[in-house]
Structures are given as C-alpha cells and as structure tokens.
C-alpha cells in the first residue's frame, strides 16, 4: 500500500518521476516525530496520533521529498483527540485497552489460630469515585476468604469461576475445599489465562485443616506462596514495609511475641489510615474479617472520605 507508482505520483503531486524504477514512493500522514524517520527511508505506520492532529503530508519517491503539498486534508476528519478513524488515508487505530484500574488495597495477616483480612471499600475510575461501599472480600468457604483489588470486572469474573469450581469439587469429594487446595486452585485458574490475564491482585486468607492461620500472596498470573502476611493493590508499598517491621519483627532487637487477633486488627486499622492518607485510591471505609476455625467475624471501620 505504501508503494505508489511513479505515474500516479506525477499526476497527483506534479513532481518529476524518479529515473530509478526500483524506487518505492511513500505517501503518508506523519506526525512531526515520525517525519524524520520517513525521510530517512524507514517505513513507519503511525497507529495512534498522540500529538493531537499536528500532521504533515510527506511524499518521497526515492529522490525528491515533497512535504505538505496540501493535496490531502490535515486534521480535518479528526475528532477532538486528533485521531483519524480511517476515513481519509491511513488506517489509524485507536488503542483500546481491555483493562481499567478500579483501585483499592487489600491486606491479610496470619496468626496462630486465626487470619485477618481487610480491604477498603472504595471503587474508583481515574480520578472519580464510583462507589464508597463496594466489598472487595469474598468468602469462598467457611474458612477461607479471597480479597482482590484491580479491575472489578475481572475480579467478579474470577470469583464466579472459582465459585463454580468449588461447587464441583464439593460435589465430587463430598466435603468443602481446604484452604491450601483453594490456594492451589486459584493459582491454576490465574495461569489458565496466562496470555490475557485477569487484572486482579489477590490475597487469600483462611485457616488450614490444622486450624492455623494461612495467608497466600498472588501475582496476576498465578504465582503464589504462603506468607505470614500479604498486601496488594494501590496502597501496597505503604503497607508492606510496615508489616515487615511490626508483624515479622524485622530490624528489631526486642523480643518477638505472638500477637492476638484484636491487636492485629488495631494494626490493620492503623495501616489503612496510613494508606488512606497517602494513596488517592484508598479510603472511605475498611472491611475487616477475622477468620477462625469456628467462623468469620466482620467489622467495618470508617476512614477519611477524601
């Protein structure tokens, strides 16, 4: 498509024909930055004109360079964003992203016979708040809760898929799934979509079959590990070093002791106050769940709504 015969060029631009029969002629809309590349003979097809319609037409037939000959309209069929939707010349494609970040932070901490999991309740899109009251925590069994931040639609879909798989398991094995098995299944489910991932940052918290607290951290494509605590989402960098210091007792010389569930909940509240202050996507309220072998306790703690 880029090769235009010298005859055609002659009639359109009235430039002399090239004596070289192998010369390829190029005519295109180019943004200022791509103009130099084109002049140097590199083929370039701009996909998105991010410079907002400041285009010049360039034709080069191997010998002569004709710039801005004015035969083709520049920026007249472009919309406000400065993108030509393929009406005039080149097929300019608007980059559609299938992902959107809906914000949020999740935190999970494991204890001797309990696990605490918490997530803020704000749903946002860009600088806008869509809801102050959306739950990011999802109980999968009586002993296991999944907290996910990221793109809400991917999170919801992932949960549906997990719920179905767990029903099938319960049907086949005649018992609910144990937490380490849920952890493995979530990892596998995420890897299934390795090349078009779920945009979900997960933490899994629960009690294992022995009654001890279990927390698992995940990345978007299913790599997981059992850890003493896990934080993910937009506020994770504010929370993780704090957890290192307070929960894992790193860089401390005083003696480490087991913490009670109530103490851990206070730490979680402090942590979310911090994250709410410094992260724009975190705030409104924190939903906290304490998971023990005998059941799940819930609490809603209000944060600043700014």
């Amino acid at each position: 498509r880029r090769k235009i015969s010298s005859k055609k060029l002659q009639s359109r631009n009235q430039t002399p024909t090239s004596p070289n029969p192998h010369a390829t002629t190029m005519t295109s809309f180019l943004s200022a930055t791509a103009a130099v590349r084109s002049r140097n003979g590199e083929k370039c097809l701009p996909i998105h004109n991010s410079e907002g319609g400041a285009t010049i037409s360039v034709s080069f037939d191997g010998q002569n360079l004709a710039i801005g000959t004015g035969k083709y309209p520049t920026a007249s069929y472009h919309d406000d964003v400065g993108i030509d939707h393929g009406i005039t010349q080149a097929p300019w494609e608007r980059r559609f992203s299938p992902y959107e970040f809906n914000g949020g932070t999740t935190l999970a901490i494991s204890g001797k016979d309990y696990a605490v999991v918490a997530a803020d309740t704000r749903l946002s899109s860009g600088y806008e708040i869509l809801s102050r009251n959306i739950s990011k925590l999802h109980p999968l069994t009586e002993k296991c809760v999944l907290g996910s931040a990221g793109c809400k639609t991917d999170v919801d879909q992932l949960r549906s898929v997990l719920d179905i798989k767990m029903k099938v398991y319960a049907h086949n094995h005649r018992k609910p799934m144990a937490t380490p098995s849920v952890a493995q299944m979530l990892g596998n489910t995420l890897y299934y979509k390795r090349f078009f991932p779920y945009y979900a940052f997960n933490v899994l918290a629960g009690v294992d079959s022995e009654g001890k607290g279990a927390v698992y951290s995940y990345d978007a494509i299913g790599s997981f590990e059992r850890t003493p605590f896990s934080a993910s989402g937009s506020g994770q960098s504010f929370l993780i070093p704090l957890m290192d210091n307070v929960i894992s007792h790193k860089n401390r010389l005083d003696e480490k002791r087991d913490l009670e569930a109530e103490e851990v909940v206070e730490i979680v509240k402090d942590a979310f106050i911090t994250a709410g202050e410094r992260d724009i996507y975190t705030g409104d309220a924190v939903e906290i769940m304490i998971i023990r072998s005998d059941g799940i306790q819930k609490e809603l703690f209000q944060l600043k709504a700014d």
Partner: protein
Amino acid sequence: LYELREERTMTPQVFTNLLSNILYEKRFGPYFAEPVVAGLDEKGSPYLATMDLIGAIETTKDFVVSGTCDGNLYGMCETLYKPDLGKEELFETLAQALLASVDRDALSGWGGVVHIITKEGVMSRELKGRQD
C-alpha cells in the same frame, strides 16, 4: 559568599530557597537529585523541606521523604510518626522507618546513616542493615 556578606550562617529556609533556584536554573536539563533539607532555624525551631528535581518546594511540620522507595517511606513515617518525640525516640523511629523501607526496595539499602540535629550539635549514627 552569603556568610561573608551577611556575617551570619544561612538559615534552613534561605538555604532551601537557594537550592530550589539552583535546581530550577537547570529546568530543561535538570540535576537528577531530589533533596531533603533538615535543620534548626535561628530561633531553634526545626525546619523540614523537600524538593523535586526541578526545585518545587514542599515544607511540612512532620516528615519529608525522597528516593526510589518513597512510597515505602511514606507508609512507614505516616504510621510511626508522633509529634514531640525525644532525641533517642526520634532516632529509633527514623531508623526503623528507613530500614524497613529500604529492605523492600532493590535499589536501596546496604545500611544507613541517621543525623539528629539539636542546638548542641549534630549526632550522627550509622545503621547496620541487610547487606543485600
């Protein structure tokens, strides 16, 4: 030059302004430095400021952070800070905040240095951290 002309030491506020101007001079070819200024003014009250690489000043009363793990540092400082801490307590707080933050950053670490600035002088201590 300032000290020669004014016959007194520069206060932190004036120094911060000077630094900001130096950075902004290089607006289109900046120094890749994001400094933090801490000191006591002529009355003895503490002064804190930070700047981005082109000299935009931010002064706070509680804490300022800067660096590759600034997110980590914000989290630690926000949680651990209390106003009116004593010298030793402040040192402990600073040390814990710094060590915990750099341990979670691949580009920072290998120890630390803490300076506590008082009317009597500057107390400097080196921190031993993870050597990785």
